[in-house]
């Protein structure tokens, strides 16, 4: 009897000890796992700190200051007055439509022109390396420098463009001084400058298309036009989507070229949202300028997110 009891007893203790040991090991292990997790996450801390200080914190400050009247040293809360003022700004309505026109036209032309240039650069031309460099080069120039350069090229009498046109017997228009033409001249300059990026992205997209498709097309009796239309165009879709989104968002935010070429002039005819915001800033209306930036953020998000979803619907792996 005592034996069984002792066996049970000691068995129980052993079981207990075993249990405790097991539980002990489990606790140690989970402590270990937690430490592991903390250890891994801690590598994210520096990056998040930088991101937080440079991006998140100023964005939150912007939201705050957009509701105030601010002169850099003192601020007064005024609610939505800044937003109301911004929407009553005469130049604003025109600038909203100008911004959309700028984004659509510049993005559209870069998408189409970029594809053609990329096809040329992926062909059997011997000079295609040089061509790629020449096409991409304008993109690395500063927008301000490009703007100043084109302003002098586009001078109606002394500029090179009109002088060349006059040699051909055509009287060139006043590119930047004609209120109806100014915005489109800036868009043309923007296309010249930005088409390189589109081309490079397209080249990457075209090179990703397996050559078997082209060979199959030739076997089926297709010519270059069929190859382009039925194979290249559908299959560069990922690259095309990237180009559309990048160039559209860039077009909505455009500022450097507009400011250096016309400062939104003549009058208000080439104002875009970013230049209207900048004008509030240089007049010292800091709260108003921040409100404008928040509006720009909302506008770009409202257009960019749906656009992204629309372009990537039904995406599948090739």
């Amino acid at each position, binding site marked *: 009897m005592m034996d069984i009891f002792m066996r049970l007893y000691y068995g129980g203790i052993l079981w207990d000890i075993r249990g405790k040991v097991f539980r002990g090991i489990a606790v140690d292990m989970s402590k270990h796992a937690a430490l592991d997790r903390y250890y891994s996450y801690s590598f994210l801390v520096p990056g998040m700190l930088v991101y937080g200080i440079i991006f998140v914190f100023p964005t939150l400050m912007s939201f705050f200051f957009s509701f105030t*009247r601010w*002169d*850099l*040293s003192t601020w*007064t809360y005024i609610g939505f*007055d800044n937003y109301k*003022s911004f929407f*009553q*700004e*005469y*130049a604003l309505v025109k600038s909203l439509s100008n911004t959309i026109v700028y984004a659509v036209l510049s993005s559209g032309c870069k998408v189409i022109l970029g594809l053609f240039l990329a096809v040329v650069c992926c062909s059997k031309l011997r000079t295609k390396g040089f061509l790629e460099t020449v096409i991409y080069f304008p993109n690395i120039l500063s927008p301000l420098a490009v703007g100043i350069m084109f302003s002098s090229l586009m*001078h*109606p*009498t002394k500029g090179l463009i009109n002088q060349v046109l006059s040699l051909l017997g055509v009287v060139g228009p*006043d590119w*930047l*001084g*004609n*209120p109806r033409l100014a915005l489109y001249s800036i868009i043309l300059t923007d296309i010249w400058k930005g088409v390189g990026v589109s081309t490079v992205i397209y080249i990457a997209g075209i090179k990703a298309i397996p050559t078997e498709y082209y060979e199959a097309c030739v076997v089926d009796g297709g010519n270059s036009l069929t190859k382009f239309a039925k194979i290249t165009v559908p299959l560069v879709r990922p690259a095309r989507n990237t180009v559309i989104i990048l160039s559209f968002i860039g077009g909505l935010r455009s500022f450097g070229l507009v400011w250096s070429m016309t*400062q*939104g*002039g*003549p*009058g*208000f*005819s080439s104002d875009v949202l970013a230049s209207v915001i900048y*004008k509030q*800033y*240089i*007049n*010292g*209306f800091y*709260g*108003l300028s921040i409100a404008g930036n928040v509006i720009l953020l909302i506008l770009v998000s409202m257009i960019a997110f749906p656009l992204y979803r629309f372009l990537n619907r039904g995406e599948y792996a090739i």
Partner: protein
Amino acid sequence: MNKLKLTSVIFLVIAFAVGQGGWAAGNDSTLTILCQPTSVTSGLTAELDWIRDTYGIKTAVEVVAGGSEGVNVIKMRIATDELPDILIFNSGSLFTSLNPQSTFVPLTNEPFMKNVDEGFKKTVMVNNAVYGVPIRPMNFGGWLYNKKEYARLGLKVPKTWAELISNCEKIKASGKTAVIGSFKTSWTTQMIVLADFYNVQKLEPNFAADYTANKAKYATSKAALRSFEKLYEIYAKGFMNRDYMSTSYDDAQQMLVDGTGVQWPMLSQVLPVMAQKFPDKMQDIGMFPQPSDDPNINGFTVWMPNAFYITKSCKDIPKAKKFLEYYISATGLNIFKSAQTLDGVFLIKGSTASSDVLAAVDDIVKYTEEGKVAPALEFLSPVKAPNLPQICAEVGTGAVNALGGAKMADDDTTKQAKQLNLPGW
């Protein structure tokens, strides 16, 4: 090891060189001056050199961007406390927007302030404390004209707006440009509207006070609306040069001197600049004030000059005050005059203009002697539509008519007044 030594030596050398540059700029015996480009003229530099050679006060001038961008840079420097010893800046409403009481050193009771014109003192004064000393003569706003072309076409200086229009028509018929438009330099688009203010304040003496108090508006005041109507009329009758949208400030000077353009609404500050470029042509350039509809109301709108202000971060305030005293002393003003033809009178007692060199000054001096001058609106009111150059460009290109332009100017002013938190808006 060698590579490491080499790179560390190069690094030290560069750091030393950069450090040198930094130390030199912080040299305490030099007064640092900050200004915008239009302030740096031959007269100013001559005085700075003279003060350095005679009194041993060295100055270092730093130039920032012109226009409203430069104004913003200066405001930023004030906010971040990176100011020079002396700041050259506008007087009037722009001056008050810099918060003078906390930024500048008051000069009200300094002995050298006795000679400064009382009218000028009002434009650099806040709460009865005077802060500034003028750097150059007053600026007159009116119409520059080519005397030779006027003589050739048998025209007389117009005393009413109707006479001016008829002169323009005769000039246009002869094939020359009647009115030079220099719209590429955007601030010049405002000249016709702003130079008209003498006439406005004669017809409505309380306009400036009412404008500040949100009671008077450009769109509803008959006299003030006339200013916009005059600008629109110049556009509508096709009196400007064909490429006025891309003609700049410099191009316009050339046109006026050559006689291809006969009249140019402009500030007199351009005269010394032209005198340097075209010294033998200045006798052909005259100036008349923008006429009103009434021949008995005829006078110049004047812009008070920029001023020296001593900032509170000046390290040697007594030295800066001495600098100002020498600048506006009689000898100093003579040095200025010999280096830069004076298009007007320094607002210091005892100063005279250079009528021997500039024929236009003869025309101007007659009006100042008869008291037919009045300050521009921006010196009587802290509000001024910040986008006025663009609004005037819209009127001057016919995108809006005069009433539309006036309404836009009023809306713009309302926005600014709200942002400045002025009472009554």
